């Protein structure tokens, strides 16, 4: 729980908030308690002094010279924290003249101290015989010509009990307050961070396809608004960069193709003219053939650049089986030359459509099948299988298996790289522009599919092309 909390900013904010709040509250509780203790203690002292004065007025010596307390006037201390009055009166020599019954004959405060209660009200706290703590006030009082020391005490138990109660309430309130504050703090943090979460969600949806999308800026002056503005600015620059790349593609096409067009036309026209040696014509023909190769490479690079900016690929749906059949029909004659048979196996995929750019994906299939023919031994078979992917039911899988030399483990990824041509001697003869499979991969990926060489085949190569199935909603 704690770990999960600290993982998020809002959790960490809440914990910090609770910690600081707890510290402040603790200091507050201590201060309040100390203040209250002192205040009430002082109040009690004051009331005790008042009581001493009252009692002094009620004491008298009776006819026998015995000290008495006037009982007809029932005096009560003002504070309800002073219950049970304990009193002892003694003369200056220490002889006890009066002692309340609740002392049970024991002394209140022991022998007289020097200067005790002389001119002032001495206060001290002591423990009497039965163990209770008592706050004691001493005062010397003159009456009827005699001087006596009055000691008046009250049990501290009610006061202390009150203070304990107070402390308990404070200590109980502390965690409750912290809990409430923590919850509120968490909610506030969550609300404050909510726009951030929304921004993240929005940013996640922005890709090369919809770079023109921008985050909403509610208030450009707050921190989040500032961040959104900065982010939008970044998107602006990114979009600009993409746009420049796009126009670069077009410019490069022109800059490279215009001179090539000139070379080609000049060469072709030169070949048509009468005269000129056979050797010259050979040379011009070679130049023209290379020009074509160059043009195909440029075309491939432009296709890659376009597919990356994702503009070239319009979403449409088509039958993968049909497109494959067209490819097989075109390439059949090549296979036939090498006595290679096509074995087609259309499982449950007949009549199902996939989504993607038909002509580009058809080109990808063309490349894959052409490769299979190139690398197959004469008199072998190439198996082409269409099947719905059973594990998810959302894709159609086209696989092209040949019985050629296969693709080595180390090459399985590399063959889809740009300008990759195998260095192995048995395949070196067949090198093309080296762009075919990388274009195929980009095209298939852009259509939401996958293309890879099956790592689990032992004989030949099995190229798998997986494309998202287009669900047709039929009313039943």
């Amino acid at each position, binding site marked *: 729980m704690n770990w999960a909390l600290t993982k998020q900013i809002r959790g960490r904010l809440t914990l910090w908030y609770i910690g600081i709040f707890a510290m402040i509250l603790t200091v507050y509780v201590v201060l309040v308690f100390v203040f209250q203790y002192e205040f009430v203690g002082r109040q009690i002292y004051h009331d005790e002094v008042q009581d001493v004065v009252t009692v002094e007025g009620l004491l008298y010596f009776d006819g026998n010279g015995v000290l008495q307390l006037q009982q007809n006037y029932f005096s009560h201390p003002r504070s309800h924290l002073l219950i049970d009055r304990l009193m002892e009166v003694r003369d200056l020599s220490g002889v006890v003249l009066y002692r309340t019954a609740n002392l049970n004959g024991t002394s209140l405060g022991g022998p007289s101290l020097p200067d005790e209660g002389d001119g002032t009200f001495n206060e001290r706290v002591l423990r009497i015989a039965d163990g209770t703590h008592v706050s004691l006030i001493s005062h010397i009082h003159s009456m009827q010509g005699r001087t006596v020391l009055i000691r008046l005490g009250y049990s501290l138990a009610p006061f202390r009990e009150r203070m304990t109660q107070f402390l308990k309430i404070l200590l109980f309130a502390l965690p409750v307050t912290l809990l409430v504050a923590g919850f509120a703090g968490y909610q506030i943090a969550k609300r404050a961070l909510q726009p951030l979460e929304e921004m993240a969600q929005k940013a996640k949806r922005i890709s090369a396809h919809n770079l023109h999308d921008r985050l909403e800026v509610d208030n450009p002056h707050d921190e989040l608004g500032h961040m959104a503005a900065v982010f939008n600015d970044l998107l602006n620059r990114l979009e600009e960069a993409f746009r420049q790349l796009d126009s670069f593609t077009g410019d490069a096409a022109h800059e490279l193709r215009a001179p090539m*067009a000139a070379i080609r036309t000049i060469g072709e*026209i030169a070949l*048509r003219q009468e005269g000129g040696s056979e050797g010259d014509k050979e040379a011009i*023909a070679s130049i*023209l053939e290379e020009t074509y190769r160059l043009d195909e490479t440029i075309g491939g690079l432009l296709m890659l650049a376009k597919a990356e900016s994702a503009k070239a690929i319009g979403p449409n749906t088509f039958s993968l089986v049909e497109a494959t059949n067209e490819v097989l029909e*075109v390439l059949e*004659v090549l296979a036939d030359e090498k006595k290679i048979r096509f074995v087609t196996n259309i499982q449950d995929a007949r009549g199902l459509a996939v989504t993607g750019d038909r002509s580009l994906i058809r080109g990808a299939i063309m490349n894959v099948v*052409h490769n299979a023919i190139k690398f197959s031994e004469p008199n072998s078979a190439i198996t082409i299988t269409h099947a719905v992917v059973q594990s998810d039911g959302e894709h159609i899988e086209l696989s092209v298996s040949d019985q050629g030399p296969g693709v080595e483990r180390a090459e399985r990824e590399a063959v889809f790289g740009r300008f990759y041509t195998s260095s192995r001697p048995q395949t070196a003869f067949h090198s093309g522009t080296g762009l075919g499979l990388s274009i195929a991969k980009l095209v298939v990926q852009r259509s939401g599919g996958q293309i890879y060489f099956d790592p689990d085949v032992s004989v030949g190569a099995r190229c798998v092309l997986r494309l998202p199935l287009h669900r047709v909603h039929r009313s039943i």
Partner: protein
Amino acid sequence: MPKVSQRSRILIIEDDRKLSAALAAGIEAEGYLVSAAASAEEGFFLLHREKPDLLLLDLTLPQRNGLDLLRQIRQDRADVRVLMLTSHNTVEDRVEGLKTGADDYLGKPFSFPELLARIEALLRRILPEHTSDTLQIADLTVNTRTRTATRAGKQIELSQREFDLLMYLAENRGRTVSREMLARDVWKEQSRFTPLDNVMDVQIGRLRRKVDDASSLKLLHTVRGIGFSLREPEV
């Protein structure tokens, strides 16, 4: 060489002078009257002075865009066929060009035989040619209606694609057809690409065996660097 009864006038507006010069020489050799301009302004001037039948218009011209010029030409209702040339081979470009009033479109780099074929096709629209069901080259007969071919009276067994190929070559007899033309018109592909080049080589080889092997007179020729042609060899 096909001779057009009335010599057609062609205006080339192309800023690449070397390409322009080569084109002018090549087209002139085919029997057309050719003039060339290197800018839109010059082209516009020549257009009004020489009243050409066909305009070869490069879309990327300095100062003034080829499309702009085309728009103005069409506003003036100048009765001229326009074949657009451009190195921005995008669908949008093509659509834009055709919408503005171009009659045809060719992406750079193009093959010269294809350019000639397009020029001829555009000019033929003015003078429709009589067409018959059979095409004859020496002792080879191609019947486009029954889709059969005979050499010296003997039936040649051809696959569907082989017949399409032979028919296309026969229709263009005497002329060289480029691989681009075959890709577009026989295989109905949008462009030429390496696997298709291989397919063409094999297919031409097979066709040559069926058409030429039995005869000492070879009709199907490979023109290296350019393409193929079906013709009677010059003696």
